[in-house]
């Protein structure tokens, strides 16, 4: 039986204000996902559906959206699980998770490009719109993540940012008429890249703060 060191006892007394345990990971992920979806819906409502929606057909129009939403839900769930020590995903799952967002964007961009249609190129309005649509979900995610204790904060930041970003990217895909690879990868994909950088930096900052 160990005697508790006095400094630790003092720290425990100082930290003994009542706290509420974090919600279950699925609940927290659902909150962020719902917020991201609401912001995405507002963006689509304001901009309207893409004019070539009918010619794309149900599969090409909606399958990539469903894929993005499913991947976003999974990434957000992993990010929230990461915030509870002992409940985080295993290393192989973390690696697959980091690959899934870029894979989805690249593969669906290629699919759309084969359909042909309108080339927009580097028109960066979508980048701004995507970041604006993702911002509320990213903000709430950051708040929820800060209340938890991710053992791999960089992964949690990346997964949370990419999850929120995929939902915003779904909105871009619903309204933006571009079908060219350059626009889909550089501009729509750019939303994910910017968010991933922000998420990783925030996670790295959190990690360094906890180690001090």
């Amino acid at each position, binding site marked *: 039986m160990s005697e508790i060191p006095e400094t630790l006892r003092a720290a425990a*007394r100082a930290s*003994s204000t009542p706290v509420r345990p974090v919600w279950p990971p699925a609940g927290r992920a659902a909150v962020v996902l719902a917020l991201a979806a609401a912001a995405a819906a507002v963006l689509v409502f304001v901009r309207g559906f893409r004019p070539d929606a009918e010619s794309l057909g149900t599969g090409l129009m909606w399958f990539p959206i469903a894929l993005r939403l499913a991947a976003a839900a999974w990434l957000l769930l992993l990010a929230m699980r990461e915030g509870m020590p002992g409940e985080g995903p295993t290393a192989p799952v973390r690696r697959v998770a980091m690959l899934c967002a870029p894979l989805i964007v690249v593969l669906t961009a290629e699919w759309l490009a084969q359909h042909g249609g309108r080339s927009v190129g580097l028109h960066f309005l979508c980048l701004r719109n995507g970041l604006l649509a993702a911002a509320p979900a990213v903000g709430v995610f950051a708040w929820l993540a800060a209340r938890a204790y991710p053992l791999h904060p960089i992964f949690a930041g990346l997964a949370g940012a990419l999850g929120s970003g995929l939902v915003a990217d779904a909105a871009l895909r619903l309204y933006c008429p571009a079908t060219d690879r350059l626009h889909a990868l550089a501009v729509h994909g750019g939303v994910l890249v910017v968010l991933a950088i922000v998420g990783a930096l925030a996670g790295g900052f959190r990690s360094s703060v906890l180690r001090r």
Partner: protein
Amino acid sequence: MTTEGEDPLAALMARYQAGDAAAFDEIYRLTADSVEAFLRQWTSPSAAKDLVQETYLRMLQARRSFRPELPFRPWLYSIARHVAQDARRTYARRWSKEVGVDELPEPPSPVAEPDVLMRDRLFAALEKLPPDQREAVWLSRVEGMTSVEIGKVVGASPGAVKVRIHRAGIKLREWLGSDFGTESEAS
């Protein structure tokens, strides 16, 4: 082997979350020795003593992240493991991992104490195992955790944990003979 609603440590942690500072003292009293022994898997004995305090300080920071319906030990040990890994990265060059039999961890109480000679042989054999197998065997045989709980601590699937324990068991049986027994796999 913790089941939902029966974990006294989880109940203590819930009390601490509710503002009962004395519950923390009790958690420390019940777990500090085991945590220190666990930390010695990665560090020298003197460093492990320092890391115990760091583990509990981080536990205080992480107190919101524990949900009382979940088992407590995987939560605490995954924090401890992370502290040890952080420290290893920071102080890797400073620590010598040449731990003699005298410095090897004392086994905490959950399992039946083998005789001292056998214990020394077992710990010396454990030292020879690869780190991932060593910690899996330690958590299984000394801490009495299930493969699911061990998986939570080490960040691996229960299947991967069983494979590690199985492989470690083969080696330990080879080195220790039949003394090691056959119950080397976590449920």
